[in-house]
């Protein structure tokens, strides 16, 4: 049995679905139940209860501070390094929070983290992707302490269990004058979150404009799907950066992925090729996306999408 801490994330009210997968991964590292750390701003302490219901969580450690409304790596890494001394491993779900904080924490602990873990082979041996997932490396962590970021798409979500205790822990943000949060620019959406949606429909350069994404969104609404995009569609300004699927965007593995007007570059495939069923709609029958598609439709998307919307 190994002591493992999961670094949780939440939306202000409940833990993010990716945390459920991280708990599953952490439990197989620990060989037993794990602790879950949640950071809350004053007034937001109720997230603790949502973490406590996760099966396999032995206790929630809830840290409260005004700075945690917008946590910054500069102030968070030093107290986290202290807390990490109680544990043999720290596990966080892949996401911008972990990508920002875990490497800085790792530097303070003198550890090389294992990032984007796809499988826990043994408590010290992991599978991770290289070259946009075109190669897989089995790596053994030789140090005493392990830091892992795990892909939510690669692990089952933990179920609901008996309520674990929620204990408060002091995690005083380091005094610093380096950096200050100024603003978030987020676009509100009622659609499911991209990385955990069951169905994703993505548009590429073939969409031609942001305005045209409305045709795709109409299909998404019928399917209850999240909307994604290729890098080319984001670079062209059709949609904003949080929609990008791929090696350097988000990794998704829904039951159904529909790629519309996307050619299928390796960097895009890296973000979606583990989807259960892949559909490609493209008017170029030679497009490489057809090589990974279970069902390919060679058709003008401006014809196919409205027709699809009608049939659903």
């Amino acid at each position, binding site marked *: 049995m190994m002591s493992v801490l999961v670094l949780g994330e939440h939306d202000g009210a409940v833990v993010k679905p990716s945390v459920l997968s991280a708990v599953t991964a952490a439990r197989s590292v620990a060989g037993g139940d794990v602790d879950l750390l949640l950071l809350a701003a004053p007034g937001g302490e109720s997230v603790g209860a949502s973490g406590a219901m996760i099966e396999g969580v032995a206790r929630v450690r809830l840290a409260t501070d005004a700075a945690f409304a917008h946590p910054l790596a500069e102030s968070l890494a030093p107290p986290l390094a202290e807390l990490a001394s109680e544990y043999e491993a720290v596990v966080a779900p892949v996401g*911008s929070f972990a990508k920002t904080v875990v*490497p800085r924490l790792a530097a303070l602990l003198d550890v090389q983290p294992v990032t984007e873990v796809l499988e826990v082979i043994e408590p010290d041996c992991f599978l991770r992707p290289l070259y946009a997932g075109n190669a897989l490396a089995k790596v*053994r962590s030789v140090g005493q302490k392990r830091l892992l970021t795990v892909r939510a798409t690669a692990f089952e979500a933990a179920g609901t269990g008996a309520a674990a205790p929620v204990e408060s822990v002091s995690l005083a943000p380091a005094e610093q004058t380096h*950096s200050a949060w100024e603003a978030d*620019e987020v676009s509100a959406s009622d659609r499911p979150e991209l990385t955990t949606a069951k169905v994703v429909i993505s548009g590429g350069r073939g969409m031609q404009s942001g305005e045209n994404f409305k045709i795709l969104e109409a299909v998404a609404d019928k399917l209850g799907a999240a909307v994604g995009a290729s890098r080319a569609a984001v670079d062209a300004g059709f949609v904003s*950066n949080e929609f990008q699927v791929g090696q350097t965007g988000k990794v998704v593995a829904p039951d159904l992925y529909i790629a519309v007007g996307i050619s299928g570059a390796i960097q895009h495939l890296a973000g979606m090729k583990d989807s259960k*069923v892949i559909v490609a709609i493209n008017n170029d029958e030679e497009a490489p996306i057809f090589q990974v598609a279970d069902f390919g439709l060679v058709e003008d998307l401006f014809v196919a999408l409205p027709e699809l919307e009608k049939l659903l």
Partner: protein
Amino acid sequence: MKVIVGVKRVIDAYVKVRVRADGGGVETDNVKMSMNPFCEIAVEEAVKLKESGAASELVAVSCGPKENQETLRTALAVGCDKAILAEHDSPLEPLAVAKILRVLVEREEAELVLLGKQSVDNDYGNTGQMLAGMLGWSQGSFVSRIEIADGALRVAREVDDGLEKLRLSLPAVLSADLRLNVPRYASLPNIMKARSKPMETLAASDLVAADDLKPRLEVLEVTEPPPRAAGVKVESVSALVENLKEAKVL
């Protein structure tokens, strides 16, 4: 303000890599190598900072084998002023690279470090945040906009749900995301001129302890991911819908 830019030499992003049959890694013989695309973006941003007068001198740094001099020459051709190779012949993890960069940052008395957000070979995305942690500096990772005013930086970072805007004091480490800029190509005259710019070669083992260069993750085996079974082409949207119903995803 002196700026250090970290550049890495990797298999070109558009090459389809092949895993070696012996499980020891990927094929590198006769494979096209290039500057990591995110490092190209970091170099471009540094050159822009110099053009705007915000930066005084740009030092390109690469850690790795002798061949990395080629990558450094590219950085010089685009506008960096001098180059440093921290030579090391076996693989370096981000932790080791950050330790080397830290020593060079102190030696060069740089105030800003620009790196890529991720190397596209091992996809770590660690080095910038690690270096910022080691130096105790401000950190701006995955930035898509940088403004410098009154000795401080305003950056926009690409995060999971959109953009996060931060105000950072100098000194700082920034890592570049895709939308920060569009890198320029080196012109032929500038490639020629780059040949006479200074390039220093140091042994990485003279900069940090030998133990700090050793990998902490032992690579046991590199394999190819399982291939996807071949799919089918469907004739119409209604046939597509039928198939998806049969596959129980609709």
